[in-house]
């Protein structure tokens, strides 16, 4: 028994070393990509597009369900984005709070004579409205059908070839739209582009625009800042380079409208609709042997409110993990299927083994280390060393993300912010990471129990 526990502990350690080793490869890849990307973008004239007619117009879709605290700011922010031709389509998804009244009051809405084509099936649209004060704004009022259904209604109501989805608690950086649409001009195969999402908590926001980037005051939000940096600067850049991007964030993504219609829009029976859509796109285009690319860019940025209390964060993370499990199961045809290239052979198995199961392995790992120490299968020094080893590997990745951020983008300018983030990267492994793994395990349990609720997080005004 003791021997089994001893080797089991070493097995857990080997799992962490392997998983983190792969992440280290992604770090190397991402660093190279970011360096090259920074050099190329420095030579690209983004602003030149304002003097020409050679851009692709964009419809920004903002789905909103009970978002009265943030909706006006979000819509104002979307309207203030610098882009030559842009429409904002807000979808009021059967809100029962003051969302609708806030929209009518702030933007002077009147019924529009236009109608909505149902290119993608969605719940009944009760009405289409336009603003007397903001010509680029359209509001769709519809029966409640969930976020995915609201997005589908927004796609139906949109009239431009590119469709950008943002969350109702998010603010797009004013320069981001020009950057995120660029790949659609430079590569005819591009069907979707994802941008970076960062916590807006603590930032100085005026008239729907982030004026001054500051670190959040709450410790929980700071831990999430580290997490977001790690996820976006390493994971997605690396996967994008391997042409195996499995997810573009639902909080900030842009799609070719025809591609969305072709795959049937978002699925309404999942809570991980953003990841599910990307996986389905991979399947659909590879099946049809159509050349396509799904790209992630580290430059365009969208600011979003992250939860600052444990209850909301727990709900969010459980939902995300449930969505991950659901998306992987719904697109299991991808698994180890060479027809789907890197996504099938590398991306899918990695996500299944290292993203979906890692919290379970981690929780079991902690349990078996304690059990092995108690049963004297290993010495307490060895147990501590194994735990420390796995935690420190995580810290290396967080620190690397900080280096990359400081080197390539320098969004957090103050030295004080960098030091604070570094300290949080060191502390992350002492409690937060374990809690996070526990929530993700619970998310898996929720999925197995077929739970389908969203759990609306509490929003604060910007």
């Amino acid at each position, binding site marked *: 028994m003791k021997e089994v526990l001893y080797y089991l502990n070493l097995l857990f350690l080997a799992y962490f070393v392997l998983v983190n080793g792969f992440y280290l490869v992604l770090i190397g890849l991402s660093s190279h990509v970011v360096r090259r990307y920074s050099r190329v973008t420095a030579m690209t004239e983004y602003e030149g597009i304002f003097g020409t007619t050679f851009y692709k117009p964009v419809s920004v879709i903002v789905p909103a369900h009970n978002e009265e605290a943030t909706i006006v700011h979000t819509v104002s922010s979307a309207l203030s984005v610098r882009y030559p031709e842009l429409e904002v389509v807000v979808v009021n998804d059967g809100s029962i709070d003051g969302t609708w009244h806030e929209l009518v009051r702030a933007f002077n809405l009147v019924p529009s004579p236009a109608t909505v084509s149902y290119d993608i099936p969605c719940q009944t649209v009760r009405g289409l409205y336009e603003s007397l004060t903001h010509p680029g704004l359209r509001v769709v009022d519809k029966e409640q059908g969930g976020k995915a259904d609201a997005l589908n209604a927004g796609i139906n109501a949109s009239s431009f070839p590119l469709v950008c989805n943002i969350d109702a608690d998010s603010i797009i950086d004013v320069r981001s739209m020009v950057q995120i649409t660029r790949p659609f001009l*430079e590569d005819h195969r591009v069907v979707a582009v994802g941008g970076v999402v960062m916590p807006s908590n603590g930032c100085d926001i005026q008239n729907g625009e982030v004026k001054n980037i500051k670190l959040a005051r709450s410790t929980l939000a700071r831990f999430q800042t580290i997490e977001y940096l790690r996820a976006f600067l390493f994971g997605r850049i690396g996967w994008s380079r391997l042409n195996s991007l499995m997810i573009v964030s639902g909080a900030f993504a842009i799609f070719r409208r025809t591609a969305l219609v072709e795959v049937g829009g978002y699925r309404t029976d999942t809570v991980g609709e953003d990841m599910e859509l990307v996986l389905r796109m991979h399947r659909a285009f590879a099946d049809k042997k159509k050349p396509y690319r799904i790209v992630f860019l580290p430059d365009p940025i969208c600011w979003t409110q992250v939860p600052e209390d444990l209850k909301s964060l727990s709900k969010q993370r459980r939902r995300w993990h449930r969505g991950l499990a659901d998306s992987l199961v719904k697109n299991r045809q991808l698994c180890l299927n060479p027809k789907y290239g890197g996504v099938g052979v590398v991306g899918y198995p990695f996500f299944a083994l290292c993203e979906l199961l890692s919290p379970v392995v981690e929780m079991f790992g902690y349990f078996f280390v304690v059990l092995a120490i108690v049963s004297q299968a290993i010495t307490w020094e*060895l147990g501590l*060393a194994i735990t420390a080893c796995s935690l420190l590997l995580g810290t290396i990745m967080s620190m690397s993300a900080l280096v990359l951020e400081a080197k390539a983008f*320098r969004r957090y300018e103050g030295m004080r912010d960098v030091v604070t983030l570094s300290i949080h990267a060191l502390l992350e492994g002492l409690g937060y990471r374990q809690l996070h793994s526990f929530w993700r395990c619970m998310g898996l349990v929720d999925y197995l129990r077929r739970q389908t609720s969203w759990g609306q997080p509490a929003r604060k005004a910007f």
Partner: protein
Amino acid sequence: MSAFRIILVLIALELITITLLLVATLLTQAHKSGSRMRRRMELWETMLPAALAGEQQAVTLIRASLRSEAAWKAFHNFIDENLRHEQGDSTLSFRRLSRHVRLTDRLHRQLVRSRDPLDRAAAARTLARLRERVAEETVLELLKSKDPAVVLVAAYATASFRDPRQLLPVFRAIYGRTPITLHGAAELLSGFGEGVCPVIHGLLQGAVGQYEATSTPGAMVVPIGTAAPVGTAVPINTVAADPEQVVDRDEAAAQVVMVDLLTFYRYRPAASTLAQLLTFTTNEEVLIHLVKALALLGDASAVPRLSELLGHPSWVVRRQSIQALAALAVVEAAPAVRALLGDDNLMVRASAHDTLRALQRARARRRKKVVEALT
């Protein structure tokens, strides 16, 4: 060695890595917001107007600040950034300054010697913006690179020289060697400037001539921009019935980009050629862009064909045609437009609705003018 020791070694290594990363973060941060670099930038910004005006003291001060490699790179970026919106004489001032402080020499060395194609492309771009013709040949070489990013940067650089003769080589390079879209290509080529319009017009006239030629059995067809080989005419009786067959994908793409550029520069002398092209082409993409162009350039000879296109199977073509008729204020087209109020497509119905209102207004204006003339 026991597992415990191995893990301890691993931990020690990890701790060292974390410390190094922490130091790297802080150093990067310190370097980027470093006071020395900030002072340099302030100096350059203050001295730039005087240096551009040719004041020797300002030039000497800037030259003295360029001691390290980092300073040269920063100055290169600084000049490149300031050159973005400059044209004409001010570009000449930048060229003079760059030569005085020896930035031009460094960039030329970088362009010729560097092994990194992106480094070469960066140098090429700035030299092109400085209109240093000595770099032109190397820039054209970079268009042959296998790396699409390098090809794009080189294409931007070539466009900066504003030499109309390079328009087609650049178009062929970006369209053949990168996955660029037509929008992207047109945006890039717009950097050539307005002077390119007569060249494009000539090429499109050639295309019209080819379409006409294909209606005659025994005619010869050559791609756009290629001189017809004398004495080696290839009879193409088979395509006589369908002129569209002479346009392959590249040809259609070239036409779209050219039409877009003429529209962008509002080059009215080309309107009648575009109207002629409209009668020949059946390529949907070309049609859409031609209709849009004619709406903006305003050529009444296209009206019969535009009215025909109201029955086109593509809703985009139908909508564009309606909008073009509205822009040209063709009151006589009202019955045909009214028929489209019952179109299957919402966008077409909406456009028809708007156009009818616009045509009513146009008719009212016309009546008023007639009444005024009579009274």
